[in-house]
């Protein structure tokens, strides 16, 4: 099968590149081996402030709502961090001491939302905080398998009964001027977080949970639907195994599911992610790129990969593909001229700081511009 561009990797970087190319009338395919980092998305595009116009356009056409305000946001461990471009679900404040008194609401039996940490964090900022648990008959069946009482399962119920939750919270509210809730709203119906904000007489703050990320999953669904509506071919659950390269030019890639039916294209984008997504593989001896064997920037001595301080800067997270200025990855020191590497496979992202999303978007646009400039 022949396309203008074949993209390996269906996460944020791959989808932004795919949508941008389809919008310009190019035919593309995205090969995505399993789901991606959007499922662990904080909801904040770290390292980005205002969205560039072209990103705003993609978001609005996909139905994604984002905003930015100078200031801070509340993190799941009860700390505050400087704000960046965020999905609308995320609340942004002028200062950490954003209210006087907060009510933290969790659901009985839900272990992926750390209400006490948040209460501690708020108290450090001088905010009075109390935690209350809701027990709703509609959620009791989830508790039958406690290990599966997770964000997405709750969110599916919340799409139906969020108004009831609002009523319950109204009963709990005293003189609190903020309500803090886990991010389990608006999985299908994106308007729900906004409607909850309107319905409660206090500032409503949604805070991240353990994965899967509800806003991230929704964003993935919105972007994929937009991509497919534009005529893009999304090959979910398939994996690029190898590529046919001749004199620095890729002609086609071979996938697990399609076997001897190769995917041909004029240009190729590698958006395969970092270690978790297997864009990079580490073995006891080395770090390598598994699809083509591209050049990887990594230190040879394994003892230097790690920082014994767990929370410190981990050198292995800097590892990534070596590229030229146009994001062409190198193989044996020579650029692969019709291939572009984007997103976390480039390395230098810090998942604990969430910088992957910003890097994914910027590098995707750069690769797209380069592809479009070549007629």
């Amino acid at each position, binding site marked *: 099968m022949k396309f203008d561009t074949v993209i390996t990797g269906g996460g944020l970087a791959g989808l932004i590149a795919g949508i941008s190319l389809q919008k310009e009338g190019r035919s593309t395919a995205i090969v995505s*081996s399993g789901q991606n980092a959007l499922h662990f998305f904080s909801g904040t595009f770290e390292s980005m402030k205002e969205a560039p116009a072209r990103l705003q356009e993609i978001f609005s056409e996909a139905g994604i709502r984002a905003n930015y305000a100078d200031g801070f946001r509340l993190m799941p461990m009860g700390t505050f961090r400087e704000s960046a471009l965020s999905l609308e679900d995320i609340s942004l404040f002028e200062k950490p001491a954003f209210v006087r008194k907060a009510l933290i609401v969790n659901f009985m039996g839900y272990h992926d939302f750390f209400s006490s940490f948040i209460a501690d964090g708020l108290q450090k900022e001088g905010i009075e905080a109390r935690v209350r648990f809701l027990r709703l008959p509609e959620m009791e069946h989830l508790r039958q398998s406690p290990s599966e009482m997770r964000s997405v*399962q709750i969110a599916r119920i919340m799409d139906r009964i969020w108004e009831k939750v609002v009523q319950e919270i109204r009963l709990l509210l005293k003189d609190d001027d903020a309500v803090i809730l886990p991010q389990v709203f608006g999985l299908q119906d994106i308007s729900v977080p906004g409607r909850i904000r309107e319905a409660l007489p206090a500032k409503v703050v949604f805070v991240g949970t353990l994965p899967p990320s509800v806003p991230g999953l929704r964003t993935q669904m919105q972007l994929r639907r937009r991509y497919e509506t534009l005529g893009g071919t999304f090959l979910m659950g398939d994996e690029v195994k190898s590529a046919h390269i001749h004199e620095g030019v890729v002609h086609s890639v071979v996938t697990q599911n399609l076997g001897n039916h190769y995917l041909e294209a004029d240009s190729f984008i590698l958006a395969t992610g970092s270690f978790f997504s297997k864009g990079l593989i580490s073995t006891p001896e080395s770090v390598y790129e598994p699809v083509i064997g591209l050049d990887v920037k990594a230190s040879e001595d394994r003892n230097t990969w790690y920082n014994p301080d767990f929370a410190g800067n981990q050198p292995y997270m800097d590892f990534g593909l070596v590229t030229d200025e146009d994001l062409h990855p190198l193989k044996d020191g020579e650029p692969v001229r019709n291939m572009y590497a984007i997103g976390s496979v480039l390395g230098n992202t810090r998942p604990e700081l969430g910088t992957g999303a910003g890097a994914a978007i910027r590098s995707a646009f750069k690769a797209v511009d380069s592809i479009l400039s070549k007629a």
Partner: protein
Amino acid sequence: MKIQEKTVSPHNFEECMKCTVCTAYCPVLQANPLYPGPKQAGPDGERLRLKDPYFFTNTLKYCMNCKRCEVSCPSGVHVADLIQAARIKYDKSAPKLRDRILASTDFMGTLARPLAPIVNGVTSLGITKTVLDATLKIDHNRTFPKYSAHGFEGWLKRHSKEQAAFPEQVAYYHGCYVNYNFPQLGKDLVKVLNALGVGVQLLDGEKCCGIAMITNGMSEGARKNANHNIAVLEKAVESGLGVIATSSTCTLTIREEYPELLGVDNSKVKDSLLLATRYIFEKIEKGAQLKFRPDFHMKVAYHTPCHMEKLGWGVFSEKLLRMIPGVEFTLLDSNCCGIAGTYGFKKENYLVSQAIGAPLFEQIKTVNPDVVACDCETCKWQIEMSAGYKVMHPVSILAQALDI
């Protein structure tokens, strides 16, 4: 220090990072609280079962084997295979009579077909459904697939001479559905392939692929069928024939489930067995041409069956349909229809099955197509019954659009 490279676990279960992505995509978990979910039933449970079979639980039977967990897994764990393999290994209870009946598609088809008009009449009676519900726990809301009085095999045998006259030949694994229930699909395939200059042959006595036996606790029967089918397929492949099928589930079963779950080696035939839509697409890609009716018009919404998602070949059906002038095409969101073969026929699963399919049915009603296109026979029954739209195989739509 190459130890990591040598420790490949069965069905890749040690690759599980506990990321929980599969739990977000499991259709059953959304609808049935009794099911522990793919992560717990799959890799998490496997660790415990390896310690002590005591940890096997019968709730694994609620897994539909739709494979959506595997398609979504970022780490390449064969989650559904782990669950089905555990059922095969640890569940020693004898399958119920109902499950035997539902799983024996070949046997039931052979019995029912000569009496098709009577059987079809009887199974559509309210009283029959009530009795089956009460006695066998086959849900009374179900519409039963109709049997066809004349099978596909007989029809193709009668046309074998004219088929043999085509310069190119292919063998067709038709499956139980085409033979017993809906020979028209087989005839449509022959029409399209003939238009491409390809004649169609039967295999030398195929049997049911066995998927219904695998999921109903009859793996021994499934293994027998698998060994038989592989022998028959090898014979065809050795004689230089390619083999095609129209059912996405039969194809997945032979390609993936035989080695993964039944331990049956399919390596000599795996690459030669293609879905008809892929075979036709590749022919056209290489320059073959189909002539379409200029007046053809159809609004088509394509539903990708779960097993087609797992195969990763839905793209061929999609591209073929988009190729037909006059087809107004919509790709439906990736959702399970809820029937999962025999699963949705069982009384204890009926409500779950319908709840799972609801988002798909709603989207179909919103799109309001002339026809829903789909490569799976059981999805067809489910969508026709539950959404009220006609469902056609992409090959049948091609056949209808041909200008011959």
